[in-house]
């Protein structure tokens, strides 16, 4: 089938709106098969885990060449650290895309909006395609947009919880208010949840834990790829309005007619 629904981001044209990850796999050898089964074209990798001198057993070896690399700044606790990690990623040939993660709370792993915006501003000026991971807060989202973010990545639930779209209402507001693409990141635990995010109008979803820790990551990757595509199609199709009142197909007041009636 010809893909007509293209997602343009950072100068790339993507036909899949599922972004995947490289963390938490029992074996990185699964990564190519997951990429293929899911159709994903963008993959995030934690620079902290990468051997910069290109040692043999390296996650980078398992990432198929056609994938767009989205290095992330996991481990950064401040804007300054995130900036340094981003520069390192570019210097080692990971490209210009960077996912900003600034987390100084290891208990809940919630991103620091203020530091994230600071890092975004610096890196956008340096020509990076900056995708900041954030708490779905409209004000933070606006400051990220002002700082030059290419898209906004709100969390659906805290990282690794697989709890789904706990922040649904906030994400809905971001989708309505922001002109930038909204990529739901973190918390999505099942394909139906990813589908729901896409139906709401999210531009893409990033899923790592739910795929990597599934009993069959390849099959789960395929399920997510399909769910994201289905949700996107549903969004494009424009679902019928939801009403809590049942509507009889023959209106109950039809007998009143358009005109007439006694005064």
């Amino acid at each position, binding site marked *: 089938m010809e893909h007509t629904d293209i997602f343009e981001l950072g100068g790339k044209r993507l036909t899949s709106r599922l972004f995947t990850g490289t*963390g*938490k*796999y*029992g*074996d*990185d050898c699964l990564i190519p098969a997951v990429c293929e089964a899911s159709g994903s074209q963008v993959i995030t990798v934690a*620079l*902290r*885990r*990468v*051997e*910069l001198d290109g*040692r043999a*057993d390296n996650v980078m070896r398992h990432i198929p060449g056609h994938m767009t690399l989205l290095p992330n700044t996991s*481990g950064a*606790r401040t804007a300054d*650290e995130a900036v*340094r*990690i981003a520069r*390192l990623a570019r210097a080692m040939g990971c490209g210009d895309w960077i996912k900003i993660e600034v987390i*100084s*709370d*290891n*208990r*809940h*792993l919630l991103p620091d909006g203020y530091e994230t915006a600071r890092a975004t501003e610096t890196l956008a000026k340096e020509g990076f395609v900056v995708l900041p991971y954030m708490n779905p807060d409209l004000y933070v989202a606006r400051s990220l947009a002002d700082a030059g973010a290419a898209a906004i990545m709100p969390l659906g639930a805290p990282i*690794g*919880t*697989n709890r789904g779209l706990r922040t649904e209402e906030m994400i809905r507001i971001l989708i309505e208010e922001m002109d930038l693409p909204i990529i739901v990141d973190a918390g999505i635990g099942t394909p139906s949840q990813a589908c729901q995010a896409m139906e709401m109008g999210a531009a893409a979803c990033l899923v790592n*834990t739910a795929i*990597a*820790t599934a009993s069959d990551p390849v099959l789960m990757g395929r399920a997510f790829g399909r769910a994201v595509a289905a949700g996107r199609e549903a969004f494009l199709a424009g679902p019928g309005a939801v009403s809590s009142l049942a509507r009889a197909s023959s209106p109950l007041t039809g007998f009143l007619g358009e005109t007439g009636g006694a005064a």
Partner: protein
Amino acid sequence: MSFLPEALRLHREPLEERMAAATGHDALRALERERVGEDGFLALLSPAAGQHLEAMAGRARDLTLRRFGRTVSLFTPLYVSNHCANHCRYCGFAAPNSIPRSRLTMDEVRAEGEAIAATGLRQLLLLTGESPARAGVEYLEDCVRVLRPLFPSIAVEVFPMATDDYRRLAAAGVDGLTVFQETYDPDLYADLHPAGPKRDYTWRLDTPMRGAEAGLRVVNIGALLGLTGWRREIFVTGLHAAWLMKRYPGVDVAVSLPRMRPHAGAFQPASPVSDRELVQAMTALRIFLPRLSITISTRETPSFRDNILPLGVTRMSAGVSTAVGGHAKAGETGQFEISDPRSVAEVCAMLKSRGYQPVFKDWEPLEASA
């Protein structure tokens, strides 16, 4: 601030009685909760919870998988000096024990580092006995300078230091600290540490806090299991970890569960901990603190390490020698006997065969790359 008031409060509490009163039903209720509080943790450590070990293991496995995935971080200790001023009654390095004493020269440190790096390991734990006079901050800084190019992550397990000394080490490239309280029972602590600077219970208790203050990224604590009743020790260890996590949210708090091993002295464990009990301790900790890093050392046997892997373990030592200079040359006396002598390659093969990925590197040092 200090954890001391909390430790002393817990010392006065009849925790064993409260645990004895907990029922299997209390443990099951704790297992059903999304977040387990102090009471639930206590119930999970109770004798009655022992009947529900399988359910605890299942929950611990699920929580570990969600937070850490199928990955286990590997590190190895490097013993650079066994001089020690302390008289810990349970340790082979104690000052009164007549063992050969040595401190590695920088050339020897480099040789050891290269031997370890050749196995693929990238995370190092630098160890000494406690002798600031013979292996002090300056010596450690020198070691770190030599080792830094080989290891992106270097932690220390040395004598407790002041915050400023930890800052110096952090500036040299140290990112983690391991310090075991040995026992949280102040009376037993006094008894087991008859002489030497380690006698100061409070100074040691606040060491992880000082490390965190100094900006170290990983702080690993623990009690030496076997010295006294494990249920109480694990309970206080868990609360200490929770206390650190709350005050220093940017720090990765880790707990080790070292069981006592035979060593050169005559001291033997007063309260041996069975395999079943260790599993209960570990799964209770995981359920209480789902984001806690949990370290299992080569004190444990290969088969035990392999089997507890999914139940909460996130960090393992591998390719261990507890002798000074034991990586580049053999035959020295170690601090204790290890039970898992497998090479790094063998441990990796085991992890892979069980569907786990060994992680060699989990930090990119930024000070050098600015």
